[in-house]
């Protein structure tokens, strides 16, 4: 009987291991990870956070505290490993002035996260956070009406952050760590030039970059009430010697040096700082609520410049003029049974994109967010988690885009499904 049960048990455990290995492989590849949310901020950094609408700064729930508030590590009940993957499914429709409505090409993006925390001493904890907090991905039909602006855009970032947390006393802790960011970008568009076969020319820009930053936070506990404050610095991604590839350029325009067939470019993308303050409250033994306030310093994304060292006539600067924004998030966790926690959250996320700068590369707008999730205790130390989030990006009309005069109305829905595992030890 026992033997039988064990053999039957093994395959499922193997599945879990396989999933975990899959996540590690993805991390090793630094897979392009993408989404759209509050500029190009991605809010899928833990299943618990997704389930609560991103509202977790005032709670120390699992390994994701490394990222949300490193000081919270000191208040975790046990050591944690958390790993997870989310599927982001953006759906955008554009209604321009000329051709009727056009839909963004359906794509699924899959940001992941991996966290580990370990209590070295009673007052000192260490941790590691690896995740994809910023990125964007949009893809339109190759022949669509905005093809000279964008056909495809992908920016992804992987944040790797070793973390320390020190608990001064039972009420207050401090935590932080340096961040190494691996960034990659790929932008593709058509050029308004045709050859004798009527084939349109194109440009693809591809680059990789490494940046650094830091994350620091304070966590305070007053019995039922927790206060968390966290600051993640801005990160400058310097793209040096990226590959610029021109396709289908008529030979006459290469011969007279209007275009090279390929060249290199330099660019800089600034990822913003995020200041978060959270208020967590234990309403009862079974219920926790949290209110978060985020301030994202998007004003660092002022312009996107491309410099072509060998072909300065192609240099290009596009004003972005992002503004810094706030998000307000409210989430709750309810212990439904001994084994099952349920979560729900709502949020309002302000768009950093100003009128006059709304572009199909990132057709952003203010959004309302609804979310739900669960954690199920599979075994004594092993938890299975899931979450779902719906972002309603408010319909937005651009009437005078200052960069390219590309005007029209955008409407997006974003669906997120997340799965994760937690192991306590």
């Amino acid at each position, binding site marked *: 009987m026992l033997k039988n049960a064990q053999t039957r048990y093994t395959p*499922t455990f193997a599945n879990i291991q396989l999933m975990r290995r899959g996540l590690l492989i993805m991390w090793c590849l630094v897979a392009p990870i993408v989404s759209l949310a509050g500029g190009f901020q991605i809010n899928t950094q833990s299943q618990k956070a997704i389930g609560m609408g991103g509202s977790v700064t005032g709670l120390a729930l699992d390994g994701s505290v490394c990222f949300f508030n490193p000081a919270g590590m000191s208040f975790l009940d046990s050591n944690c490993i958390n790993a997870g993957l989310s599927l982001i499914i953006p759906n955008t*429709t554009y209604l321009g002035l000329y051709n009727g409505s056009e839909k963004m090409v359906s794509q699924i993006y899959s940001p992941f996260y991996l966290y580990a925390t370990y209590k070295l001493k009673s007052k000192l904890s260490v941790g590691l956070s690896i995740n994809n907090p910023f990125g964007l991905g949009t893809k339109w039909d190759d022949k669509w009406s905005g*093809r000279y602006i964008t056909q495809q855009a992908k920016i992804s970032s992987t944040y790797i952050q070793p973390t320390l947390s020190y608990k001064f006393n039972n009420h207050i802790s401090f935590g932080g760590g340096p961040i190494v960011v691996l960034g990659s970008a790929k932008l593709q568009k058509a050029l308004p030039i045709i050859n004798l076969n009527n084939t349109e020319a194109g440009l693809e820009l591809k680059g990789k970059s490494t940046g650094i930053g830091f994350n620091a936070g304070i966590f305070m506990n007053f019995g039922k009430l927790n206060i968390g404050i966290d600051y993640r610095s801005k990160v400058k991604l310097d793209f040096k010697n990226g590959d610029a590839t021109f396709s289908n350029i008529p*030979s006459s325009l290469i011969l007279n040096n209007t275009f090279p067939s390929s060249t290199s470019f330099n660019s800089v993308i600034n990822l913003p700082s995020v200041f978060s303050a959270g208020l967590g409250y234990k309403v009862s033994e079974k219920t926790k609520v949290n209110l978060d306030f985020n301030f994202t310093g998007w004003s660092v994304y002022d312009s996107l410049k491309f410099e072509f060292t060998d072909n300065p006539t192609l240099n290009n600067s596009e004003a972005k003029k992002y503004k810094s924004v706030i998000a307000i998030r409210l989430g709750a966790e309810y212990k*439904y049974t001994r084994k099952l926690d349920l979560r729900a959250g709502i949020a309002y996320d302000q768009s950093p994109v100003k009128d006059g700068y709304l572009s199909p590369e990132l057709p952003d707008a203010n959004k309302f967010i609804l979310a739900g999730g669960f954690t199920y205790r599979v075994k004594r130390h092993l938890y299975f988690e899931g979450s779902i989030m719906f972002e309603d990006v408010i319909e937005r009309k651009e009437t005078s885009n200052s960069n390219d005069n590309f005007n029209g109305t955008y409407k997006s*829905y974003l669906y997120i*499904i997340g*799965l994760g595992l937690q192991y306590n030890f």
Partner: protein
Amino acid sequence: MALINHTYTLSDLDYNITSKKIIHWCVVVSIFLTSCKPSLEEPKVSPGLADFSRFVVVGDDFTAGFTNGALTLEGQENSFPSILASRFTEVGGGAFNQPYLSVGNGLGFTSQGNLVGQLQLISVFNCQGKNDFRTKYSVANPYDLQWLGNLKKYNNYGIPGAKSFNLESQTFGKSHPAGNPYYHRFASDTGATSGLTSTVLGDAFSINPTFFSLWIGINDVLQYAISGGNENQLPMHEITADSSFVVAIDRTINSLTSNGSKGIVLNIPDIENLPFFSTIPYNGLNLTKAEADSLNNTSPSGVSFHSGANAFVVNVNGVIRQLKEGELVLLTTSSDSISCFGLGTPVNPLSESMILNQQEVSNIHNAIGRFNSKIESATASANLAFVDVNLLFKSLKSGILFNGVDYSTKFISGGAFAIDGIHPNAIGYAFIANACLETINSKYKSTFSNLDVNQYRGIRFP
């Protein structure tokens, strides 16, 4: 123990989940969510007060779809009325028949009257050994000159080369050179029996239009302008007399509106806004200090040079002088001769046929001004919609940013004009169609959307 199976059991919920089921569920939900796309309400198109069921157009090269120095099948397919008709079909517009040429290089004529195909852009080494562009005529298909028969089914009566007074001419349908070879192709009567041919207006009216466009008058000044002010004193190159222009416009509009048809009338663009007249500046002679000094040594008084941009030198009846600001150099002036063989210097001055002097420029400018006021007032008194193409070309000259592309009237790089420097390409014709749609919307309370000009083809580069 029996509960530990392939399934974990949530006994509390009485609900079974397995990792297989979860993955399955995720796939199903993802597919469902991927297909859940937001929709936006598209604006409704209505014809307003006009009836677009039978749309007939009368005019010249610019109505026919003439481009790259010739009329081609592709040019016809992208003529501005053909583009307009594609929108009219949304509100019950009927078929738009054009006297199509065969696939190929079309029909064009050189200034000497020789039959040629359309101009092609070629990449060559210029006299300085650098890669540069030139244009070259291709070979026409003479079969395309043949009469198509008495069909009377066409909607496009844009006749390349037509002047205002040609529209009612009873010799216009004869074959080249007595008549107009483009009208001859599809005139209902080529004069074989009576010696008198059908007229453009008569044929156009035979379809009983409900809506029309009229764009005539450019050729009444253009031939004077491209011949450098009619240096050869040919009557056919003279600017049309005001009296005959006025009569022609009145008679044409009366005839087209005699059945109560509504329509649009387009005016004449100033030639300064066409690349043919605006590409080579009057002071396009770029000299180094040494070159300027050497020329100064041999120059007559009143002609002097300095390093940088200098006014070209022109030979007027044996006397040389420098061009003044506002005088125009024609695009046909050889750039190789300018950059390598001293064309435009006292050594090798420009000839008068290569330029338009102040007097000629003002003759053209004033004639266009008078013709345009006639067109505008006649349009107003017939209560028709007036399309200000002149204004459109002016805005195009200062640049129009359209969905990420900068268009201008710059030769080749501006993107909206053909390589003949006078006629628009398909993109330019789409801009004209948009100006028409905007006018129609405001005059007849229609609700057409403008066209995406980026969906039309620009210059093909070799």
